[in-house]
């Protein structure tokens, strides 16, 4: 069969498919849009024509048909392939399932990484916190004097970190950019055998612990803790989870199991990113709370403690209990 006969024989199929795949505009000879039984409308027919065209492409290649013909069939099959095997993981139903099942489920499945991240974050935080409390000069080995002075002023004026309300939005923007950025960094740097995540976890733990310990020694504890207690439930948990997601990447590279390191990294990254989505959402909540609630001057510290405790219980309960399969 010559290329021309081949083309004449199969041209109708290719043209129908090209139209359905959006590779050409509608022409005079074509069926009206949405006509039943065309590849455009009928998925089974689309698939059948696609398979036929794959066969044509292979024949054209083996018989060394002209380049333009092979290229046309290549473009056509590539476009159909993209349509048929396209994966979409967006959508509202998907989003609901994500927060109810996937996110807490993944966190529990990776409890070892979460535990390790938690220890690496909390232990330096407590150690440095106690050290700064016992020896107030210790904080100067972590922060410079001017930032220590700023913390003093922030929490020392009896306003407990409260600010004029028109700056709420400014702080919100700042928290979003700053905190979520830190969490993403904490995750991404896990790619270096997990070392980056360990560093960022410990580093942030040290920062938080030193400030808390120092302010407690200064007797500004009530101001400070009533300010941080509520959003810390989301923020600290999220940082630990981001670090855990980074550690997962590191573990995939260090101990890939029965896969190549590449394959282990790719499959682990798909799981880890689920946690990172959740972390981003939690930090968004934390930023809202930190900007509009924690800094609000009119709320009594007792109320803040109560709400903060509720949030802590809520967040932990969410991560521990949500999305478990039903027991019979």
């Amino acid at each position, binding site marked *: 069969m*010559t290329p021309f006969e081949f083309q004449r024989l199969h041209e109708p199929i290719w043209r129908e498919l090209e139209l359905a795949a959006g590779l050409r505009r509608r022409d005079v000879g074509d069926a009206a849009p949405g006509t039943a039984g065309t590849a455009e409308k009928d998925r089974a027919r689309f698939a059948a024509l696609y398979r036929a065209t794959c066969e044509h492409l*292979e024949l054209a290649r083996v018989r060394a048909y002209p*380049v333009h013909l092979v290229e046309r069939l290549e473009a056509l099959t590539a476009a159909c392939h993209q349509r048929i095997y396209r994966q*979409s993981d967006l959508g509202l139903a998907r989003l609901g399932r994500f927060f109810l099942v996937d996110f807490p489920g993944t966190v529990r499945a990776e409890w070892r990484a979460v535990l390790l991240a938690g220890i690496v974050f909390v232990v330096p935080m407590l150690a440095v916190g106690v050290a700064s409390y016992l020896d107030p000069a210790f904080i100067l080995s972590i922060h410079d004097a001017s930032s220590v002075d700023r913390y003093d002023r922030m929490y020392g004026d009896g306003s407990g970190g409260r600010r004029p309300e028109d700056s709420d*939005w400014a702080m919100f923007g700042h928290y979003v950019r700053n905190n979520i950025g830190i969490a993403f960094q904490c995750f991404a740097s896990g790619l270096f055998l997990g070392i980056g995540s360990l560093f960022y976890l410990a580093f942030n733990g040290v920062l938080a612990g030193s400030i808390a310990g120092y302010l407690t020694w200064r007797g500004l504890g009530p101001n400070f803790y009533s300010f941080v207690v509520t959003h810390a439930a989301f923020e600290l948990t999220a940082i630990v989870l981001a670090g855990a997601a980074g550690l997962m*990447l590191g573990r995939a590279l260090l101990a890939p199991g029965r896969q190549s390191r590449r394959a282990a990294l790719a499959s682990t*990254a798909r799981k880890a990113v689920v946690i990172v989505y959740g972390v981003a959402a939690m930090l968004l909540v934390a930023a809202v709370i930190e900007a509009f609630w924690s800094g609000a001057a009119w709320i009594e510290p007792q109320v803040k403690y109560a709400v903060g405790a509720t949030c802590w219980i809520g967040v932990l309960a969410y991560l521990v209990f949500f999305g478990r399969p039903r027991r019979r």
Partner: protein
Amino acid sequence: MRAPPVDEPLLDLRYRVETPEGIALTLAPAGVVARSVAFAIDFSIRVALLMTVAVALGLLGQFGFGLFMIFFFGLEWFYPVLFELSPWAATPGKRALGLKVVMDDGLPVTPAASFIRNLLRAADFLPFLYAAGLLSMLVRSDFKRLGDLAADTVVVHIAEPAHAELATDAPPRPPERQLSTRAQSAVVAWAARIPRLTPARAEELAAIAAPAVVPRAREDQQVAALAGVARWLAGQR
């Protein structure tokens, strides 16, 4: 991946992925230079956007500053994600250079993959100026940066425009000798390229092939003779 169907392995960096139907799609990964230029374009766009928005939101005081920081955050992390999930699968910079992001198997990039590759940009950036990403791209033949490795994605050149159909009107004539399949396809491919070649170049190429295909054609008739053979081979008899 498997060997190309007809001839020996390709010498260039293209690689083939096989679809479930058993046909091979060809992908042409984009290298460091193209991607750096694309990045520079995107970076300029981002800076310009940021400055425009900063001026506009600057009028709104503290509230405007908050919005600006949120915008900054979005631009910093999600500018590429937004564009990669659009039908072009490429940021404006990549589009300008004819690049797009696809999955390893040639499929459109998924939201999760786009998210992963752009979050891990932070790792590619370390220790400074994308050194890690650059190193990774240089040692790999498919030019993946670390984010691409974890997300199973690859940045490819969009396929160049297809060859035209045979556009010659030379009278069809059979070749004077038996031609192998590869020789046949070479002649037809040459004929398809005539419109894109200068006449002198077309003659030059014809002079190489003519002795093997149409040895009796006069020297000034070689192009026409060979084009005629191409039509005959393609079936326009």
